[in-house]
């Protein structure tokens, strides 16, 4: 994963304007009220009012507002977050179907990767996967849970979903039960496949420079990194392209490898071209001539509004005019 410049909208920095004022607060308020129904005498209206203050006056994202309000009631009720449940048994869900924060769910998943925990509060962090996709998980140190092993499939009951910048994760907590299961899971990669004509190559394509600071790979604008100011950039190749099938448009990012596969231009060749011309824009111009107006099929995961190309294929095989002709004559 890499950071990108502001224009792609996929940076990991926090944006103040995450929520618009017109958010529906009644639904989350109702859900919170149900969670505390047995312990506290609060009305949906009260909760909605609290949420409204946070979201509309203080411009806090809804997920944060929700967390804050829930915490307030947890204190009032003298409860731990761990004791809070969705009310009754959880739903067993597919990973790809996780689409809201603060939900209590059960999953059967394989530990695809374990990452280095960067904080003492975190015992383990990594990636869980099932047939439908993958999701980040966090296991807290204070929850005192058994160690998870990479490659093992587990039945995980009572985990909580969370959201940050539109990406979902699950948190294991003190009430979570972990049971190793003797089965194999073929982990899906939630990749999408798109086809269409490449109708545009956007600015920021071709030979670009990235910030060399550790863990920062932002694209430089006029030699400047948004975060680190003026830096000596490192060259990279990429294409931000638009695939259009006549009904939908999809923005696709091709990294260095994919860009070379698409255009036949390697990073070394790109640098040479730029050096000869004393201008980096010649690289993108050359790429435009090679790929614009051609048809492609691209497969890869989505990130924000982009598809990241893992595989790409030029569609230049023969087409079936006969079948379309039969249809054309029949209507």
């Amino acid at each position, binding site marked *: 994963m890499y950071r990108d410049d502001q224009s792609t*909208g996929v940076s990991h920095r926090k944006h103040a304007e995450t929520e618009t004022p017109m958010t529906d607060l009644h639904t989350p308020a109702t859900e919170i009220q149900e969670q505390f129904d047995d312990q506290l005498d609060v009305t949906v209206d009260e909760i909605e009012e609290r949420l409204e203050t946070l979201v509309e006056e203080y411009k806090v994202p809804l997920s944060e507002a929700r967390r804050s309000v829930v915490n307030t009631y947890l204190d009032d009720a003298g409860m731990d977050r761990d004791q809070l449940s969705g009310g009754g048994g959880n739903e067993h869900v597919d990973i790809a179907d996780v689409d809201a924060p603060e939900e209590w769910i059960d999953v059967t998943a394989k530990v695809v990767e374990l990452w280095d925990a960067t904080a003492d509060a975190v015992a383990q962090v990594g990636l869980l996967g099932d047939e439908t996709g993958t999701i980040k998980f966090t296991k807290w140190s204070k929850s005192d849970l058994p160690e998870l092993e990479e490659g093992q499939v587990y039945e995980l009951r009572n985990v909580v979903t969370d959201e940050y910048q539109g990406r979902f994760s699950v948190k294991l907590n003190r009430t979570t039960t972990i049971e190793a299961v003797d089965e194999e899971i073929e982990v899906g990669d939630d990749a999408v496949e798109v086809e269409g*004509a490449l*109708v*545009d190559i956007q600015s920021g394509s071709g030979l670009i420079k990235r910030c060399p600071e550790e863990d920062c790979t932002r694209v430089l604008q006029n030699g400047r990194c948004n975060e680190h100011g003026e830096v000596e950039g490192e060259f990279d190749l990429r294409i931000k392209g*638009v695939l*259009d*099938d*006549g*009904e*939908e*448009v999809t*923005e696709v990012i091709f990294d260095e490898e994919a860009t070379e596969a698409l255009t036949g231009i390697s990073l070394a060749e790109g640098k040479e071209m730029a050096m000869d011309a004393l201008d980096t824009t010649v690289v993108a111009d050359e790429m*435009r*001539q090679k790929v*614009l*107006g*051609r*048809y492609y099929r691209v497969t890869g995961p989505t990130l924000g509004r982009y598809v990241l190309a893992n595989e790409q294929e030029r*569609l*230049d*095989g*023969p*087409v*079936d*005019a*006969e079948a*379309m*002709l039969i*249809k*054309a*004559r029949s*209507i």
Partner: protein
Amino acid sequence: MAATPTREVARRVFASEFNDASYTFKESDDERAPVYVLLPTGERANRVFLVGTLTETEDVGEDSEYWQGRVVDPNGDTFFMYAGQYQPDAASMLRELEPPAYVAVVGKPRTYETDDGEVNVSVRPESISQVDEATRDRWVVETAERTLDRIQAFDDEDGAEMDEYVQMAGEQYDLPVENYRRAAVGALESLEDEQRETTTAEQ
């Protein structure tokens, strides 16, 4: 309202239908709101993608360069495009390309009224690139498919649930959509003929 305006899709349309699309409109009063031409099969188009044979280029400008390109589809119908100083990439392509050549064009529909009151429809190209026959063939089949989809939607519509662009096409034009079905058939037939000739030549 979405923070970033969504990019307009590039419609697929044969030249005969495109050249009939003389009615333009906006969806809002905002000066910068996108302008659409209304396709007679009942769809709005703010952008088109076309592939065809570039048959002629000519600098028709008086003071500065203003390039006209003629791109012909399999029915022999012509897309007209114009590129001047504000479309430098497209203009230089029209200056440099040697017709005949297969070209792919992404562009915006534009209309203008002639002195005798006729409305001419043309393309203001965003990009022009030289492509191969396989790309042209794929475009022909794809454009036939999209055209037939529009015709079917047009024919299916009646009563209260009517699609607004189908309704608009009914109000603005007196053009039988059957013409455009025939254009799709014609384009596909000519593609089949070409493919048959290629196969015969190879044997």
